[in-house]
């Protein structure tokens, strides 16, 4: 019967459409590729030795760190807050880069044409120009031998962790080795392991996963969700500020000097580290005023932006012979901020931090 045929064909259409929709919800099931075996040293060395290829890709950062929203951290704070973020990156394989992040209200694009870095914020229509970054970066860069450096790095890591190449994986459709760092049993850390996927062909890291104890899902996963190697349109790495945008030029030297002095005035001594390997604890100082009560905030800032208000909301008050403070626990680490402006933090349980405070 003709009508029956129509109904059958139409049912097949429904099934095909439903299948198409299901294919969107199913994760792309890629098999772990077969790659020649390699050693951790060889892998690290090849990464250090690799030249950055020209590529375009999308990096997805999936953050489950459980950090409270910190005041005054700006754009970086947005990345630290929980959730998924994605950014597009381009590189010409030599010295030019481009990156763009989508925000709720527009986009931030950073273009590094090799000499000047431009930062464009579409929601505020502002351009910040950083000239001469190259000179500084080159001055800071060191030309160590990659093989020597990798032996050094892996050797250092082996003191506190077992470093292994845990088979292969597939990231954004590319074959990759997986380098795994696991803390040795004696390490007092909240982390279970750190996994780094390295592209088998180009030897660049494609994905980093930080896994914490007591959680099956990674606390932090940052990696390419799409990547294409190959030469890129040079126009991508040029930037001309739009006509009506506000352009601010950042003077790197003056700014660094000013910043440095302000830092010395406010923070006193440089941050110190205690402990080794995974239970390294960083001790720093912040201006004690920042931790004072909201009503004493002389600048009249909003109380939500006040660090103390944040601490009182999301931290636990702790007391001891070392003083009084607040402890903030996240899935990957903890921090204790004392009322006199000492900050200790690390990828460790709270007790380790308090021991460090007692010793200090």
């Amino acid at each position, binding site marked *: 019967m003709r009508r029956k045929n129509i109904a059958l064909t139409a049912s097949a*259409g*429904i099934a095909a459409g439903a299948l198409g929709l299901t294919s969107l919800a199913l994760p792309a099931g890629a098999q772990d590729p077969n790659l020649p075996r390699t050693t951790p040293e060889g892998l690290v060395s090849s990464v250090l030795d690799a030249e950055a290829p020209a590529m375009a890709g999308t990096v997805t950062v999936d953050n489950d760190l459980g950090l409270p929203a910190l005041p005054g951290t700006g754009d970086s704070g947005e990345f630290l807050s929980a959730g998924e973020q994605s950014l597009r990156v381009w590189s010409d394989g030599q010295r030019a880069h481009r990156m*763009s992040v989508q925000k709720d*209200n527009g986009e931030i694009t950073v273009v590094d044409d090799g000499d000047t870095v431009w930062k464009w914020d579409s*929601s505020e229509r502002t351009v910040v120009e950083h000239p001469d970054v190259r000179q500084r970066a080159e001055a800071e860069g060191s030309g160590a031998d990659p093989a020597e450096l990798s032996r050094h790095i892996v050797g250092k890591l082996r003191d506190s962790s077992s470093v292994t190449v845990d088979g292969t994986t597939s990231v954004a459709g590319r074959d990759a080795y997986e380098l795994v760092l696991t803390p040795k049993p004696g390490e007092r850390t909240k982390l279970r392991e750190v996994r780094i996927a390295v592209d088998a062909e180009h030897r660049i890291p494609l994905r980093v996963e930080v896994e914490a104890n007591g959680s099956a899902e990674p606390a932090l996963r940052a990696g390419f969700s799409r990547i294409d190697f190959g030469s890129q349109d040079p126009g991508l790495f040029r*930037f001309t500020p739009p006509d009506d*945008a506000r352009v601010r030029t950042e003077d790197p030297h003056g700014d660094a000097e000013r910043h440095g002095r302000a830092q010395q005035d406010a923070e006193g001594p440089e941050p110190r580290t205690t402990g080794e390997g995974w239970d390294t604890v960083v001790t720093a100082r912040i201006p004690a005023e920042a931790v004072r009560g909201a009503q004493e905030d002389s600048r009249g800032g909003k109380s939500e932006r006040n660090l103390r208000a944040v601490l009182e909301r999301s931290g636990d008050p702790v007391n001891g012979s070392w003083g009084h403070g607040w402890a903030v626990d996240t899935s990957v680490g903890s921090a204790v901020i004392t009322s006199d402006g000492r900050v200790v933090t690390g990828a460790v349980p709270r007790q380790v931090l308090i021991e460090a405070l007692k010793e200090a």
Partner: protein
Amino acid sequence: MNGMTSRVELPSGTRRRESAPLGRVIRAELGWVLRRPRNLLALLGLTALPVLIGTVIALTGTPAAGSGPRLLSAMAGNGLVLPVFSLMMTQNLLLPLVTAMVAADALAGESASGTLRGLLLAPVGRVRLVAVKAVGVLTVVVLAVGLIALSGALTGLVVVGGDGFVTLSGTTLSLGPALGRVALAAGWCAVQMAAVGAVALAVSAMTDHPLVVMAVAVGGLIVFGVLEALPALEWLKPVFLTADWYSIGDVLSDPIRSEDLLTGLWRAGCYVLVGMSAATALMATKDT
């Protein structure tokens, strides 16, 4: 060409006509759809909306950065954001509502007024009947989306001004490519609305009550919105038609952020396939 006409007694000597010419049927349907006052009023209202938004923005200025809905703050001094913004605002509820209204009239409305029986007996195949009705719905969708884009672009150019169109990535486009971006957004939006229309047409074939069609279409979109907000259903999100609707603003990035847009097209295509197949199956098996 079909089973149902065989039951009609034909006077002897008359050459049996297989089916009415498609062009004439479509013309008749379009005339019917485009002469309905409520459809015309809906189109008029949708055309007026970008003018309204543009005027308000010209009078009051854009909100400060960081507040207001997506894209709104990018509109300052940038006329060609207005049509994309208008499409983004209307595609959440207004456009689906108008689409569902036309789809409701197409089959359920005929059924309610008792005229569907005549259509089923007329010398037009049932697949062809669904196709003709779908063309009617699609025409209104394309007209509605086109009118919003057109009136938005014109308002934007007149009220906000648009010499040199700045993309969200900070590059400057000339008028031609900028209008191309608006056309791209309009085309993408039309495909999404076609998906709504196809599903609404399937519901329309199922029921005799036009109101049910509108309730299901609009209610379905609201349910998608609610479910999207539940973190436990994150894995199901790619199936929701509305999942990537905000990504229409991605045409304003440079280069165009195409991933979500393409996923959205694929998804809408699947919905069109499901909706049209279901509508055809329901009509083919419907008793006269």
